[in-house]
C-alpha cells in the first residue's frame, strides 16, 4: 500500500470523529504556539534589555557602591546576630562608599587621560510631582551635574539645561522627562518650561524638557527628572552617599583603560585593593553580558515550560489513538482478514497520529506567529526562526513517537479475536 493510500485512510480516520480530532489537535496547537510565543517573549525581552543598555552609550561607565568588603567588619559578621551590623553601623563607622569628593577626584585627576567626563548621581526615591493639582509619581529622580547630560547622551528639546553656576548655587531647577511633563500638563510639555513644579512639596523651576528616549521593555525611560545634585541633597535626598558616579570614557576603545584609571584613583582614596573593593565599575558591555546570560536562562525556562505543554499534547494524541484503536478493533480485524499486513495497519494508524499532530503543528505555527504580534507584559515578542522549526519538528516527532505504541497495538491484534470484538 502506498503513502497516498495510507494518508487517505488516515484522513478518513481523523474526520470520522471531528470533535475529538479537533480537541486532540488543540493540545498540539497550544504546545506549538506556546513554544513559539514564549521563546519570542524571551528573545524580545532580551532584545529590549540590550537596546536599553546600548542606549546608555558604549563608552559609559557606572561606578556604584557595593556592600562587600571594606571597613572594620569581617565578611558576614558572626553568629546569629550576623545580620545586625549592616548599613546603619557601617555608615557611622566609616566613610560613605562614594562621595562627592570621589567624583571630584576622578574629574580633576591628571592620572585619568581616558576619562572625558564625570558626573555624580544622587537618587531621590518616592518623589511625587505636583503641578496645578495634577500629581505624578516620578520613576527616577536624579541629582547630578550638568556634565551628566553629555554622559547620558541626552539633550534638552525645550528650554535649556542647568549651568555650572546653578549647580554651585544650589538652584532649585529641574529638567523633566516627557512622561512626567505630559502627566502634569497633558499633550504639550513645552508649556511647563519656566513654571514651578513641586516635588514632595519643594518647588523647583522647570528649565527644560528632556529628549524623548522611548520605553524599552517594562521600563519607561522618559519617566524621570534631572536636577542639580546640590539642590537635591538640600531638599530630597540628604547628604549621604552618592548612588553612583557616571563616567564617560574618551572612546569605546578606551573603556577598559578608563576603568583601570578610575579603579586606581578610588583604590588609593578608599585604601582598598582589588580584593576588598567597596565599589564596582561596570560598563555597558559588562552589564550587557550579565543581562544577556540571565535572559538566556529566562528564555530557556520559558521554552521548557512550553515544551512540557507540547509533550502533554503528545500524550493527548496517544490517548486518543488508543481509544481509536479499541473502537476500531473490528475494522482492524476486517482489514487483516482481507489481506492487510502488519505494516499496513501500523502505517495507517501511525499516519493518523502524525496527521493529527501535523494539523495541530500547522495551526500552532499560525497561532504562534499571530500571538507574537501582540505586546505581552510590555514586551514586544521577537519570533526566533529556530523556535518555529523546532516546535514544528518536535510536534511531528511527538506524533510519530506517541502514535507508535497504539499503532503497534492495533497491528498486533489477532484477526479472529478482532473480528469477534463487539
Amino acid at each position, binding site marked *: *500500500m*502506498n503513502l497516498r*493510500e495510507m494518508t487517505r485512510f488516515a484522513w*478518513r480516520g481523523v474526520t*470520522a470523529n471531528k470533535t475529538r480530532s479537533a480537541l486532540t489537535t488543540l493540545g498540539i496547537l497550544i504546545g506549538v504556539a506556546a513554544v513559539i510565543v514564549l521563546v519570542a517573549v524571551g528573545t524580545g525581552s532580551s532584545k529590549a534589555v540590550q537596546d536599553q543598555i546600548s542606549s546608555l552609550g558604549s563608552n559609559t561607565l557606572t561606578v556604584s557602591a557595593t556592600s562587600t568588603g571594606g571597613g572594620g567588619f569581617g565578611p558576614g559578621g558572626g553568629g546569629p546576630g550576623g545580620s545586625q551590623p549592616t548599613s546603619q553601623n557601617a555608615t557611622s563607622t566609616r566613610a560613605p562608599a562614594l562621595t562627592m569628593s570621589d567624583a571630584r577626584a576622578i574629574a580633576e585627576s591628571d592620572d585619568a587621560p581616558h576619562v572625558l567626563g564625570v558626573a555624580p548621581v544622587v537618587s531621590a526615591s518616592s518623589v511625587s510631582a505636583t503641578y496645578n493639582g495634577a500629581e505624578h509619581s516620578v520613576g527616577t529622580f536624579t541629582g547630578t551635574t550638568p556634565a551628566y547630560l553629555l554622559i547620558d547622551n541626552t539633550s534638552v528639546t525645550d528650554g535649556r539645561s542647568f549651568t555650572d553656576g546653578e549647580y554651585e548655587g544650589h538652584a532649585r531647577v529641574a529638567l523633566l522627562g516627557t512622561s512626567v511633563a505630559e502627566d502634569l500638563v497633558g499633550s504639550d510639555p513645552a508649556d511647563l518650561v519656566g513654571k514651578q513644579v513641586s516635588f514632595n512639596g519643594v518647588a523647583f523651576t522647570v528649565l527644560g524638557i528632556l529628549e524623548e528616549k522611548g520605553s524599552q521593555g517594562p521600563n519607561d525611560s522618559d519617566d524621570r527628572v534631572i536636577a542639580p545634585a546640590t539642590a537635591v541633597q538640600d531638599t530630597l535626598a540628604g547628604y549621604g552617599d552618592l548612588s553612583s558616579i557616571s563616567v564617560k570614557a574618551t572612546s569605546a576603545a578606551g573603556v577598559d583603560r578608563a576603568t583601570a584609571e578610575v579603579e586606581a584613583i578610588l583604590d588609593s582614596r578608599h585604601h582598598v585593593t582589588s580584593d576588598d573593593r567597596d565599589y564596582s565599575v561596570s560598563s555597558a558591555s559588562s552589564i550587557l553580558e550579565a543581562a544577556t546570560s540571565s535572559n538566556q536562562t529566562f528564555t530557556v525556562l520559558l521554552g521548557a515550560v512550553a515544551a512540557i505543554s507540547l509533550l502533554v499534547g503528545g500524550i493527548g494524541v496517544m490517548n486518543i489513538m488508543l481509544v481509536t484503536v479499541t473502537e476500531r478493533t*473490528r*475494522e482492524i*480485524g*476486517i*482489514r*487483516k*482478514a*482481507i*489481506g*492487510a*499486513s*502488519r*505494516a*499496513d495497519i501500523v502505517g495507517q494508524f501511525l499516519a493518523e497520529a502524525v496527521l493529527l499532530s501535523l494539523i495541530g503543528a500547522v495551526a500552532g505555527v499560525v497561532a504562534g506567529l499571530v500571538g507574537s504580534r501582540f505586546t505581552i507584559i510590555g514586551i514586544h515578542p521577537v519570533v526566533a526562526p529556530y523556535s518555529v522549526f523546532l516546535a514544528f519538528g518536535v510536534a511531528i516527532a511527538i506524533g510519530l513517537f506517541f502514535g507508535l505504541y497504539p499503532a503497534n497495538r492495533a497491528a498486533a491484534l489477532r*484477526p*479472529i479475536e478482532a*473480528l469477534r470484538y463487539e
Partner: protein
Amino acid sequence: MSGQHAATVAPVPIAPAARPPVIEMTGITKTYGSGEATVHALSGVELTIERGDYVAIMGASGSGKSTLMNIIGCLDVASSGRYLLDGIDVRRLAERQLSLIRNRKIGFVFQSFNLIPRTTALLNVELPMAYAGVAAHERRERAEEALERVGLADRVHHQPSELSGGQQQRVALARAIVTRPVLLLADEPTGALDSRSSAEVLALFDELAAGGRTVVMITHEDEVAQHAKRILRFSDGHIVADDRQVPVGAPPPRWRTGAPA
C-alpha cells in the same frame, strides 16, 4: 485462474485433474489451553475439497466448525496436521505471508457483513485490491464490475449504514470475489438476513458456484445447506457425515430454482 495470474475475467473453468485440490487437510487438530483444561476443538480432520466444489459445513455450535473455518481461512493456525491451500503448506508461513495468502487466495463473507463503516460500497470493494497493490483505475473498474455482478451498480456510492442487510451482504460478496480468489469462504452468510434477502444472497452463491468458483459455506440451516453440491456434518471436532448431492462438475442443485440474482 489463481489470484497470482488472474488475467481472465471469464468464469473460472472446471479444474483439470493436474491442478492441486483447493483444500487438502490431513490430521488437523486444534487444542486450546493445556493440562486438564485442554479443549480439543478439532481432533484429526481429514478433508479434501476439489476445485469447483460447493461445500456446506454443518454442525451445532461448539462442534468446531468455526475453528475449522478460521483455519481454512488462514485466520488461525492448526496445532498439528498438514493443510495445503491451493498446494501451499500454510502452517509454515509467517504472519506476513499469511496476510498475503488471505489477500490473494481467499474471499471472506461473514455473518455480520463486516464492511468498513463510513466507507462507500465502492471503496469497501476496492480495499482488498488496495492491499494487493492494484493500480487505482484498474481497482475502480474491477470494483464497479464486481458490484454490478451482485446487482448493486446503482448503490456504489452508498455507505453501509445506507444499505439494507441483504445489500450489505452483497457488497461483502462483491468484495470477496473482486480479487478472484481460489476459495470463497462464507461463515453463516444468511444468518443475519430475512428470508427474501437470504434467497437473493444464496442465488448469488449458486450463480458463482455454477460459474466454477470453489465455495465453502458454514451454516447450521438445512435449507441453506441444500444449495451445496456436498454437505459435511461436523460434530465434536471431526466430520461425521459427508453427503455428495451432485458431482463436482455439475451445476449446484438449487441453481435457478431460487430467487433471480
